[in-house]
């Protein structure tokens, strides 16, 4: 091996790779046989429904039949996807009511393409699915003929049952034909699997036009939703600055005016007013800080959700346990909302609940993020004007999430935020 060329694989290795390929293809063909049998069944059902339509009764069954068709087609799509031919389901939502169903059957391109696939797969697909089994069983049977033909006289055959075996000579031929069957299986099965998958790969994918329009519609919808959430978010920030910080500063101005007026008249009476001025300015600062924190907390960027929440809990005056089960980083906006909800909730716990313990649980369940803050305090928390809970709700709803507060008088309090994060 001085040239550096790869070593030629041995004959055995080539054979093994062929056998593996044929075995895998057989496996797909058998699964395809399954969907083909279901397709055949569906053809029968559809024909029955069509017949019943002639007497009117079938109209009611068109909807369920359509659902069956989609189910079978989707099974095949899953098989194709598993085989490595990614096949996306092209359907819109199922139509409701039989009038709409009929209109849908007439207008929906994918339904017609599904029907075309169904017929091909129920016939050609079924046969292609049976072939490798036939070849395999023939190969095994005929290869082994010399071993048993004498035990079952008159029953042994070769060439798929066409030639009866009644002598040793014929039995030896069995070995030859058996090898031929095995070779056929080895060489043809991958082609058969491709052939069986072909109608599905052509017809079960979205129609090229439909693909684009559906994609455009989907992108349009998500973009609109994103813009919407963005606008709601800007509105929320505007409201927070306007109703909170700006009002505080206006009050500071007014109180400062009153203080100056008092100074001119009776300097001693200005002191309590100046104290209020200071209170007002401090409140304005606190609210400004809270608004800034609500936009995008710096800790979130640095430490991710688990770290940022742990830091929040560490700062909380009430002992707080944090349990975050989120496998990956979520979208920044979702993390920000979750963080904000926990921050506001813990502020409430500290201020109002007189709780001894609090627990923060954050879990990703499917494509939703569950955020729960529980405390053993006095309860009685409500979502209303001016409470931090209103801020949480506005923020959560801007992201299509939900806020639940269970807080009976006497406690305990459970606040739950569920946010879509898929």
């Amino acid at each position, binding site marked *: 091996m001085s040239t550096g060329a790869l070593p030629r694989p041995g004959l055995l290795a080539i054979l093994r790779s062929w056998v593996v390929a044929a075995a895998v293809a057989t496996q797909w063909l058998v699964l395809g046989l399954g969907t083909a049998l279901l397709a055949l069944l569906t053809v029968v059902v559809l024909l029955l429904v069509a017949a019943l339509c002639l007497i009117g009764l079938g109209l009611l069954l068109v909807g369920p039949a359509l659902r069956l068709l989609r189910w079978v087609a989707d099974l095949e799509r899953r098989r194709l996807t598993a085989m490595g031919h990614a096949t996306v389901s092209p359907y819109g939502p199922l139509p409701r009511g039989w009038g709409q169903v009929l209109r849908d059957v007439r207008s929906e391109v994918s339904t017609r393409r599904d029907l075309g696939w169904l017929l091909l797969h129920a016939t050609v697909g079924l046969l292609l699915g049976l072939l490798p089994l036939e070849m395999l069983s023939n190969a095994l049977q005929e290869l082994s003929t010399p071993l048993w033909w004498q035990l079952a006289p008159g029953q042994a055959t070769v060439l798929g049952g066409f030639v009866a075996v009644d002598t040793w000579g014929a039995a030896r031929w069995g070995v030859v034909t058996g090898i031929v069957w095995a070779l056929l299986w080895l060489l043809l099965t991958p082609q058969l699997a491709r052939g069986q998958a072909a109608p599905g790969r052509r017809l079960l994918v979205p129609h090229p036009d439909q693909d684009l329009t559906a994609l455009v519609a989907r992108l349009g919808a998500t973009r609109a939703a994103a813009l919407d959430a963005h606008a709601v978010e800007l509105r929320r920030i505007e409201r927070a600055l*306007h109703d909170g910080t700006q*009002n505080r500063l*206006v009050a500071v*101005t*007014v109180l400062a005016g*009153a203080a100056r007026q008092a100074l001119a008249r009776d300097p001693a009476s200005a002191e309590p007013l100046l104290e209020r001025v200071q209170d007002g300015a401090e409140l304005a600062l606190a609210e400004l800080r809270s608004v800034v924190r609500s936009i995008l907390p710096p800790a979130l960027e640095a430490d991710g959700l688990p770290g940022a929440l742990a830091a929040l809990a560490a700062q909380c005056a009430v002992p707080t346990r944090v349990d975050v089960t989120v496998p990956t980083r979520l979208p920044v906006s979702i993390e920000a909302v979750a963080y904000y909800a926990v921050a506001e909730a813990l502020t409430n716990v500290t201020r109002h609940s007189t709780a001894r313990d609090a627990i923060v649980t954050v879990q990703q369940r499917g494509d939703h993020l569950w955020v729960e803050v529980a405390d053993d305090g006095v309860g009685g928390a409500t979502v209303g004007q001016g409470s931090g809970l209103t801020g949480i709700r506005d923020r959560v709803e801007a992201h299509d999430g939900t806020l639940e507060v269970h807080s009976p008088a006497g406690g305990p309090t459970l606040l739950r935020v569920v946010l879509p994060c898929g």
Partner: protein
Amino acid sequence: MRIVVAEDDALLREGLVLLLGGEGLDVVAAVGDGATFLDAVTEHRPQVAIVDVRMPPTHTDEGIRAAVAARRDQPDLAVLVLSAHVEQGFATDLLVGSARGLGYLLKERVGRVATFLEALRRVAGGGTAIDPEVVAQLFARRRAADHLAALTHREREVLGLMAEGLGNAAISQRLWITDHAVHKHIRNIFAKLDLPVGADSDRRVAAVLRHLEATSGAT
């Protein structure tokens, strides 16, 4: 002077009450929303109402609607509307009927106590008080700016103060010029803008504002 205050922000409401009380004005009620305000007006029959635009429950224009409703019941009730920011629509809504006894000021003006009290007294006396910011915005519109190009700088200042609702004496004080000079400027302004000359100061304000509105194009 009997006053009802409607302002939902507790700190600001308290500040207003303290400030007005310090001036010896009689705040008969201080409330936090439109419905309570209407009850208070019916009960106390004040001369002046100071009303915040945004109040619960919707925080949009409760104050304006409550003020309009209160004026329907008591046409001679003077109303001073306080707003966190200029919303042109509200100012002109209020002026649809008559500018008599009406004011529209930004909240922070309250801190300049002397000017605020002057505006409050003017409104209570049947005059008008329009926030300089509102007037400035009307002036700034392109068509209005073109229209006002014929005016001298001083004449524009006088027109602005007129639009705010100031009388001749107040204008002469504010600009450090004589009463006679103010008269002369006003005559020139009315001639240049082709406005009817009238002695009545609040009708004058309305005429000036309507002129500005009309020349400022679509709002």
